[in-house]
């Protein structure tokens, strides 16, 4: 449930669902997102769901903060409603030269490479949100044994397709971008396709992701 609605500047609502990050709270954020979207409110420019917040930006020529706040406060969601997410398989190669931080992770986590990868590939992951860069999914939760801090010095360029982990989350870099996540491998799959007008993102909030380990040969021959 929304605990509090604040203004973020003069043209956005900041809907606060609390401080915790878990599937239940995030599912509520996504349900609100879905319900507001269905209402097709013309004055809304963007709705951004994240772990435990929902930001709604609007056209200040058409509506003001208090008016839109009243509309959003009247929306109710069903706690028991199940999110209908897709299941998506993502092939990942964790061999050189794709596993940029795997050796460093062995040291950071005090685990062997094999244990790290086994613990990573055995779970399925829930997509909490997408964004930062176009199509980048934030997935969780990873096994407790794999939780590591970000790199001390972020990379200026993380290669496109990189699969990273940090704290309780794993993500996929859809573009070459700066970033500080610990990179364990790379996927040959196109996770964001800008040529698609509809559904350019392969993975959306509420979806479930299963990673599949592939060899370098499979990676290079992937179509």
């Amino acid at each position, binding site marked *: 449930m929304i605990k509090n609605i604040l203004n*973020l500047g003069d043209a956005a609502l900041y809907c606060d669902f609390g401080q915790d990050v878990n599937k239940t709270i995030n599912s509520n954020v996504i349900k609100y997102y879905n319900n507001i979207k269905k209402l097709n409110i013309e004055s809304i420019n963007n709705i951004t*769901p994240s772990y435990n917040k929902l930001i709604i930006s609007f056209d200040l020529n058409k509506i003001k903060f208090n008016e839109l706040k009243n509309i959003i406060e009247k929306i109710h969601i069903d706690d028991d409603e199940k999110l209908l997410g897709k299941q998506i398989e993502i092939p990942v190669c964790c061999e050189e030269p794709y596993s940029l931080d795997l050796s460093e992770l062995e040291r950071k986590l005090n685990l062997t490479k094999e244990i790290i990868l086994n613990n990573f590939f055995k779970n399925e992951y829930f997509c909490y949100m997408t964004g930062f860069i176009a199509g980048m999914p934030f997935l969780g939760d990873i096994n407790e044994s794999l939780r590591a801090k970000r790199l001390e010095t972020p990379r200026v360029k993380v290669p496109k397709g990189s699969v990273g982990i940090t704290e309780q989350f794993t993500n996929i870099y*859809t573009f070459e971008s700066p970033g500080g996540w610990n990179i364990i491998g790379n996927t040959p799959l196109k996770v964001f396709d800008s040529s698609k007008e509809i559904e350019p993102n392969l993975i959306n909030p509420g979806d479930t992701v299963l990673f599949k380990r592939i060899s370098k040969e499979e990676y290079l021959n992937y179509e």
Partner: protein
Amino acid sequence: MSENIFKVIRPGINTTFQDKGRSNLYHLGIPFSGAMDNRNYLLANKLVGNDLNNPVLEFAFQGPLLKYSGEKINLVITGDVSFKIKHNDNEIEGNCYETYEIHNEDEIDILSTNKSVYGYLSIAGSFDVSYQWGSCSTNTKSNIGANNGLKLQDNQIIKISKISNNFSKKKINYINSKIEKIRVIKGTNFDYFSKTAISNFFEKEFKVSKLSDRMGMRLEGVKLENIKTSNIKSEGLIKGVIQVPGDGNPIIMLSDHGTIGGYPKIGVIISADYDRLVQIPPGSNIKFQQVELSDAETLYKMYEMNTHNLISQI
């Protein structure tokens, strides 16, 4: 029929096609983009008689040098821009907000945006550009929009798909006002900062860093002390949000900003001041002033009214 084209002899520093931007895509990670200075963008279109949401060329600092080939066409440049038009062996200094008739073989040389950042070139007609999600706006970080998501390149051709007939010359006198203080509404993490940090934020001057671009404006000055944590759980951003990372130097989110971010938000620039904020060049000092939501709403209404009046006079 021969083609009407511009040849890009010099692309300029960051010249891109822009329109009003694309909405309802933040949830996918796709930014709003669009012309940085909305008022000058609208004026550029109105002066040449276009629809207000027509694509224009936006340039920053040094603009492009373009050579025209085709039947006569009218164009205008808006902003605070120095430019020259070469016709045969004759060269004239151009005035912003005044339309010019351009002929085959003429050159437009956009030298600089003077004491500002962005300027706009609009033609009476339409550039031949591709659209993505209802907008041509180019986002060079995600390679989205017109020109394959790239800024203008050396020696490329810009095609013109339509030239408007029935054109009458237009000119207005407009001076871009400089802004003394950027007005700010306190952010959702205002209480993450020490009392000293808050008073410094509103009393001290900050210098605009060279590392600023269409994604964000970085500021340098007194470091803002965080008394809670410099990392929050990533959440949605909008343009104008001022984030403060661990190093204490504020970053203002601009039109191509990442859709989510994890640094505390000390404030948000009011909508009425955005156009003038983005025009403040690197090296300049800026100062912030706190206002309440209701003030911001009134100031925006006035800003919109002024924009509307300007446009309806043309």
